[in-house]
């Protein structure tokens, strides 16, 4: 019979070692990630956007949909006629631009999270099944993915929204469907390159079932490219949702979604530059920041690109 205290100590040591190993992995990751200045700046901006989205209801000077009949198209504070009440001016029905932009951050980030989650989970499952089982299952799945990819993404999303009906939720579903094949293809490729490795064979010999092999043995080793793709898809999702909103097929007015705000502002393009400029700038900055983070993640996670 073994000494119970010794067993406890052993376990503690094991736990401690595991913790250390995790830390060193994180440290190494941060080392590579922080070498990319742009990525760190991008991360700061993304952090700022998240903060703004969270505290928008507290911090925003006005309600996002509160109209002021005395302040239609008020210019920003530094322009002639601007006031400190409306720092970034007001839109055509007297709503505060700054407050709407801050609330818009919630929608954009929400869209990104939901779309990426749906397409990531869907793509991983489909890609795992295709890459693991191969044969006709693989052929069938990949042809379906080819078909989705044969249509230009925005067109496919537009048609899907036409079927489902305009609105934010349907737009998100449509974009997720369109983005999903990228994850499926990536997962499939990664699984195929991992499936014949020795550790997989040994797990198979040890009696692991299909589910365990797919999700516990192979999947964790395929995550790096998926994380990078998820970041890039996050920005694509925001852009596409804004484009659908702009075309009148996404979030519906008076939702302060940035693309929808741009659509409402279109007719004032030559009269009030601020109602057009700020929502687009918000989209650009957010998407740019996320893409910067994505580039940094790719540099840090892809061993082939490291130090190249």
């Amino acid at each position, binding site marked *: 019979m073994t000494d119970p205290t010794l067993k406890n100590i052993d376990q503690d040591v094991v736990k401690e070692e595991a913790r250390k190993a995790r830390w060193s992995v994180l440290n190494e990751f941060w080392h590579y990630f922080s070498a990319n200045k*742009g990525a760190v700046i991008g991360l700061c901006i993304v952090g700022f956007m998240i903060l703004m989205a969270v505290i928008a209801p507290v911090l925003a000077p006005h309600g996002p949909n509160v109209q002021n009949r005395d302040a239609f198209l008020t210019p920003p504070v530094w322009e002639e006629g601007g006031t400190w009440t409306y720092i970034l001016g007001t839109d055509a029905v007297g709503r505060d631009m700054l407050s709407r932009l801050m609330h818009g951050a919630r929608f954009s980030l929400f869209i990104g999270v939901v779309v990426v989650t749906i397409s990531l989970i869907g793509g991983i499952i489909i890609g795992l099944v295709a890459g693991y089982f191969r044969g006709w299952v693989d052929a069938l799945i990949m*042809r*379906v993915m*080819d*078909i989705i*990819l*044969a*249509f*230009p*993404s*925005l*067109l496919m999303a*537009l*048609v899907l929204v*036409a*079927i489902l*009906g305009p609105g934010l939720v349907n737009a998100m579903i449509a974009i997720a469907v369109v983005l999903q094949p990228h994850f499926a293809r990536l997962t499939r490729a990664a699984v195929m390159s991992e499936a014949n490795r020795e550790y997989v064979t040994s797990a198979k010999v040890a009696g692991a079932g299909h589910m365990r092999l797919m999700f516990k043995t192979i999947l964790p080793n395929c995550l790096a490219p998926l994380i990078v793709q998820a970041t890039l898809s996050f*920005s694509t999702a925001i*852009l596409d949702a*804004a*484009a659908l909103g*702009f*075309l*009148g*097929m996404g979030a519906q007015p008076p939702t302060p979604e940035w*693309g929808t705000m*741009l659509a409402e502002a*279109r007719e004032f*393009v*030559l009269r009030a*530059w601020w109602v*057009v*400029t700020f*929502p*687009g*700038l918000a*989209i*650009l900055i957010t*998407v*740019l920041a*996320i*893409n*910067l983070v994505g*580039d940094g993640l790719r540099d840090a996670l892809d061993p082939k690109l490291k130090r*190249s």
Partner: protein
Amino acid sequence: MLKFLLNKLVLIVPTFIGITIVAFGFVRVLPGDPILALAGERGVEPERYQQLLTQFGFDRPIWEQYFTYVVGLFQGDFGTSIATKRPVLNEFMTLFPATLELATCAIIFAIVIGIPAGIISAVKRGSWFDQLTMGTALAGYSMPIFWWGLLLIILFSGILGWTPVSGRISLMYFFPQVTGFMLIDSLLSGQPGAFQSAVRHLILPTIVLGTIPLAVIARQTRSAMLEVLGEDYVRTARAKGLGQLQVVGVHALRNALIPVITTIGLQVGVLLAGAILTETIFSWPGIGKWMVDSIFRRDYPSVQGGLVLIALIVMVVNLTVDVLYGLINPRIRHQ
């Protein structure tokens, strides 16, 4: 090589069938009765309803309907537009040159600026030029192009008054469409000022549509060049005393261009998706705007036909790029 080509062609058949199933299914899964949707708000009498049901073949089994649909496609029957009562294929062919002209200008714009910018960035890696170019490229890649278009309109049409806001040519000019390409037709018409007007109308849409491909091409050229510049044969070329221009231009560029050409080919989908937004902003009478309008008008036969035609174009271009890639890449050619 022949085997390579055949393999590619075999893969296209299931994709084509899939595209037709999607387009065929699209109208079937739409909420509501297709006949009532066609009839509009006035409604339709029961006898006429039955008659239409038979006329459109909705009373036959679904697989038979699909079969008839595909046979129709091969005979050039892509349906009839509800809005204009004209065959969808005719509509598409009338509008397609406008999109093709715009997309061609956009991709030329992207290539002419993107490839040199990428090469110089790679050669002068880490310089201020490289950092500026790659920063700009990332911004271009992240650009919501519908907003970019509006900004350019504010600046160049609103403040500076240099370019027109919308359309393909000034309303002053009228001439028959020979080729459908405004640049060529305006020259053929011989009317003074017509060509200039067409060019001025093209500038902003070209920039807007070309922005994302430009960014992608510049980034891809840079990374392809960087990879090639580290190869042994480039070192050999330098070692034998060739000048920088010859090393970069002849030895490195030819090999770096292979992945770049693939990237350019892949931009076709991006261009067609971008055309939807660009054409909407600039009221450009092409297929992108037509698709959006058709969706809003609930002109589903047009949407259905447009979907198949656009997917076919993307598919054919991708196949061409694949084959081209095989032709210029000796590693694949000699497999």
